[in-house]
């Protein structure tokens, strides 16, 4: 309770007005504060400018921590196994990428590894690294550098697309074999939800305003 109250609402950096420009039509706005839970939209084109998410830092920290734990579970527990003709094969995120590389499709193998393992892992780690210390109003060393890579990594995190891929594969295999879901699969579904919640948890402008204030 007390900790919650000690987090400042959304500090604006010192030194004059803080204009915001619409990334879609370039219209300048004042960038005045909005109440928690609401958003500011562009006056000309209606695109979302920024939004004030409730309990943003706590949410991002909690969800990215949960995402890291779930990632460990996804890789520790069986994901999906299949039995046909007396032979049992297993699927895991690592195997989905490494089997492609072993079969000679090195580029696609690394793409799959990048989109389903490396990008989500980098995002969860950097969100935790940046937002954790910000809870106490401090910026971790190199936090600005880490945060600038966060936005660049975001489009390449495709775990929800991989989950759709699992469903399509199940439909393809359904008739020919027995399939068993493991704990890893359910952890992966939960991971998708946690990553989405963590990414949506804080507005980019708020994160950077907090970083700017914290470093000063």
């Amino acid at each position, binding site marked *: 309770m007390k900790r919650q109250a000690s987090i400042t609402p959304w500090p604006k950096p010192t030194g004059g007005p*803080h*204009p*915001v*420009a619409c*990334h*879609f*039509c*370039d*219209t*300048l706005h004042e960038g005045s504060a909005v109440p928690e839970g609401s958003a500011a939209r562009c006056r000309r*084109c*209606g*695109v979302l400018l*920024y939004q004030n998410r409730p309990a943003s830092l706590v949410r991002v920290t909690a969800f990215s921590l949960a995402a890291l734990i779930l990632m460990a579970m996804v890789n520790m527990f069986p994901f*999906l196994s*299949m039995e*046909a*003709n007396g*032979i049992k*094969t297993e*699927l*895991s995120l690592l195997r*989905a*990428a490494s*089997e*492609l590389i072993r*079969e*000679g*499709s090195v*580029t*696609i*193998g690394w*793409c*799959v590894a990048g*989109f*389903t393992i490396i990008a989500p892992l980098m995002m969860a780690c950097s969100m935790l690294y940046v937002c954790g210390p910000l809870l106490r109003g401090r910026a971790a060393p190199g936090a*600005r550098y880490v*945060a*600038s890579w966060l*936005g*660049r990594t975001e*489009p390449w995190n*495709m775990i929800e*697309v*991989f989950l*759709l*891929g*699992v*469903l*399509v*594969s199940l*439909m*393809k*295999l359904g008739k*020919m074999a027995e399939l068993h879901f493991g704990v890893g699969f359910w952890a992966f579904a939960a991971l998708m939800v946690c990553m989405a919640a963590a990414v949506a948890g804080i507005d*980019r*402008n708020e994160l*950077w305003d907090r*970083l*700017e204030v914290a470093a000063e």
Partner: protein
Amino acid sequence: MSPPTPLPRAIDQGLANCEICGKITPVVACRCPRCGAALHLRKPASLQRSVALLVAACALYLPANLLPIMTISELGDVMASTILEGMVEFWHRQAYPIAIVIFVASILIPIIKIVALVWLCAAASGKVHPSPRILGRIYWFTELLGRWSMVDIFVVSILVALVQFGAYMTVTPGPGALAFAGVVVLTMFAAMSFDPRLLWDRLEIMKAAETPPPTLDHE
């Protein structure tokens, strides 16, 4: 001098909107004081980059759909499967929802995305004149949906990892998969390098050209 517009634009005041952190800084500063990213009024060479990436994506689109994305060998029979064949197979097995998902994600989205981006580039260079509201929707669509096309690549990776039953049944990746992944990644890069503000710049130019010298007319 043109009459003052009620809504000021950042570019008119020489202010750059940082792509990484969103801070507004005079563009003469060259680097963002907050995150260190290079500052530009507009994304550099936006149209040229987008068009080049789109041309490359178009070139890969045919091999992506004509070459097999995977090969299934079952008891000695080797069967190559393209994306379209995979979809038709689901349709024949009456798995209509999944056939529609594959059709939308693998065939419809890439082609719509390429056409939409070409159209956006044409609009930004003043070759077509649609309303900015429609363009906004199209841009939002290309940004949001492009990644879902990757689903077929993931299906191949999952089947290759799971279906390894020696002589009984084996799945190996095909050359179409690389081309298809190329189409998805290239269109994602093309959407990223396209600057939607160019559409509004074009609108300003057209408005300035249309506005008659300040007389009594109020058309």
